[in-house]
């Protein structure tokens, strides 16, 4: 099958490519791209005038809930939501039931993904057995089985000696250690950010120190060990200050944030809105601005969704009983694109945060617009505005504060190897 995409704005962050032209795909591979491609016989032609064509996103922070919590999501539905969001590679977090802490479980996820996933799945394994924070998992065998990183996501590793050892050992196997920075002694019992909203709702607030203390400890351990540290979902202005200090010190680390931390504030929780309950919690206007600035400056290099599906059983309950987290695979791109519209990021820089930087951190070759490479492309309409209704959601769960809100920017088509998916 041949597909010829005409007059698209073609972008590739792996080679800083940004031009308007045509792109030819043959047998699932990129055959050529140029200002104009003419005279190719027997093609399906896609008129892409006004659309952007770029490689699929790499989302390094996704919860697929399989095995163990399939009523919230499974590998089939989660990856279908990813596909519709233009996310063609995902790294899934190991806090399933049971947690992915053995090579057998890593292989289980990969096997299930081979059977029914719509996009490529890269498992992340636990740092410690059972995510208990006590004993390290088998980093070497986990990597051999296909794990691309280790994380006790959802939990910090509170024992500093264990974390120190994890960084030393992970360095040997070149596995990124992804840390969920929240000191449980400080965040325990808290449901939302400590501040005006926690006072209003009478809920225990999580202080900024819960994140900042954890960020600082992990950075210092990375400095001592040289271990490959990646900090997940940074949410605070004060954390950014610490990250800046760490950059100046030359400490090796990478850090990510999520769209909700540069889009929403704690105000979203008002009225006990459980869809806006997330860990770390939504913060303040000041923090939102600081997160944007940090993306602009390159202090934060990754935008990930932290897609965390929960069913009404976990969300339509009393606020303090509700599980934290929101789905995000289908809002990742439109919310990130907003940063381009606002002039915070250039299109290429935005795509680096969504494609090449996460790929680099996971030690995988990023998808790209290069001749001979597999076609892993999306066609994105940056102008289209639409209401994000429940019908559009492909995930099993619909827990998102963006439900029924207006979004701008929509994935129209996905070309993944031999398949052309027309989404809308």
């Amino acid at each position, binding site marked *: 099958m041949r597909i010829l995409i005409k007059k698209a704005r073609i972008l590739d962050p792996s080679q800083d490519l940004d031009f308007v032209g045509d792109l030819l795909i043959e047998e699932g591979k990129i055959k050529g791209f140029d200002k104009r491609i003419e005279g190719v016989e027997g093609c399906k032609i896609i008129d892409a005038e006004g659309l952007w064509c770029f490689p699929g996103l790499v989302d390094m922070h996704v919860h697929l809930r399989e095995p163990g919590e399939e009523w919230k999501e499974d590998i089939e539905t989660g990856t279908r939501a990813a596909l519709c969001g233009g996310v063609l590679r995902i790294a899934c977090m190991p806090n399933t039931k049971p947690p992915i802490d053995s090579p057998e479980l890593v292989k289980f996820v990969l096997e299930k993904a081979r059977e029914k996933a719509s996009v490529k799945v890269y498992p992340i394994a636990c740092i410690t057995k059972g995510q208990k924070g006590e004993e390290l998992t088998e980093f070497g065998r986990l990597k051999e089985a296909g794990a691309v990183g280790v994380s006790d996501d959802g939990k910090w590793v509170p024992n500093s000696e264990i974390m120190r050892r994890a960084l030393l050992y992970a360095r040997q196997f070149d596995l990124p250690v992804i840390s969920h920075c929240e000191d449980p002694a400080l965040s325990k019992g808290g449901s939302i950010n*400590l*501040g005006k909203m926690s006072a209003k709702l009478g809920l225990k607030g999580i202080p900024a120190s819960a994140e900042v203390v954890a960020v600082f400890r992990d950075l210092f351990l990375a400095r001592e060990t040289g271990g490959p540290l990646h900090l997940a979902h940074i949410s605070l202005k004060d954390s950014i200050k610490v990250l800046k200090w760490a950059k100046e010190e030359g400490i090796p680390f990478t850090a990510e944030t999520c769209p909700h931390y540069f889009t929403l504030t704690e105000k979203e929780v008002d009225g*006990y809105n459980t869809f806006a309950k997330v860990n770390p919690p939504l913060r303040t206007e000041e923090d939102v601005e600081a997160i944007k600035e940090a993306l602009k400056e390159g202090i934060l290099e990754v935008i990930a969704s932290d897609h965390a599906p929960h069913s009404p059983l976990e969300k*339509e309950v009393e606020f303090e009983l509700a599980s934290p987290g929101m789905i995000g695979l289908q809002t990742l791109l439109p919310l990130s694109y907003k940063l381009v519209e606002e002039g915070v990021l250039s299109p290429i820089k935005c795509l680096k945060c969504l494609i090449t930087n996460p790929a680099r951190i996971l030690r995988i070759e990023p998808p790209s617009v290069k001749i001979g490479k597999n076609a892993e492309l999306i066609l994105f309409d940056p102008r289209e505005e639409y209401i994000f209704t429940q019908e559009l959601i492909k995930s099993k769960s619909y827990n998102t504060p963006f439900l029924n809100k207006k979004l701008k920017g929509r994935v129209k088509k996905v070309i993944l190897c031999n398949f052309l998916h027309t989404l809308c």
Partner: protein
Amino acid sequence: MKDLLDIASLEKKQIEHLLSLAEDLKEILYRPIPKVPTLRGKLVVNLFYEASTRTRFSFERAAKVLSADTLNFSTGASSVKKGETLLDTIKNLRALGANLFVIRHPLAGAPHFIARSCDVPVVNAGDGTHEHPTQALLDLLTVKEKLGTLSGLKVVIVGDIKHSRVAHSDILAFQKMGSKVVVTGPAPLLPEPSEVSYFALEKGRFKVEVSPEKALSRADVVIALRIQKERHGTALIPSYQEYHQFFGLTTELLLKHLSEGGILMHPGPINWGIELAPEIEKFPRQVILDQVENGVAIRMAVLLTLLAGKKDENTN
């Protein structure tokens, strides 16, 4: 007004309406037969997910004086033991004919949650560490009765402000009515700097004061809070003895600091010897039992306003 969920969402006018209605209704309690038929045929369901003496009986008494029927629910003797969710419990009680829910719940926002998902009025009788609006209303009524006004007063709240739903409601209620509120207590139990902007409705109207003596100075109203032993044990306070020594109220302290005519209140139940010295029971300006009596009048006013709709003008 569909529900009474918190003081935060009440306007001054609504508070004034409830207070004056309660003042009118209080007279019924002194009649030889303290009962009027106003809410005959209405079913008030008291959902108590937490222990309570005053609030629960006060709501029940108020409903009965107004001739409403009452169902009393307590978690120990219900299907909550079998794992029934709050939402299902509400749906079922609604199907049984409930016309109004009074709810006391250990989790903040539980009344808001059920108010969103049911079509009958919901009254918050205390939710976690959030608010206890009828307590604040009865406190206002008591102060108005004793001091003749609610504006220009200095109201001091002493104790575990952070975890007290009574304090959270009182802080807002007294400010809305034109008074100044000062809170004091052990520093880890006071509002955090980042929370103060919520509690201060206007500049200079609200203050967190770490020195109890400074806070109490020239107070018109002192509200002592209960140390919530069942919630925190001694996790937040090193010892009850230390608490009493530094934050407990004594007759001597009150005589030294209260303004002329100033009063002492307590929402109950009292831990004698911890937040209040035992001799305070005989202190002439403590109005703790007046508060309890006013609680019935306030709850009558609330039930009537929510259930009788526009008829509240001609209840007598």
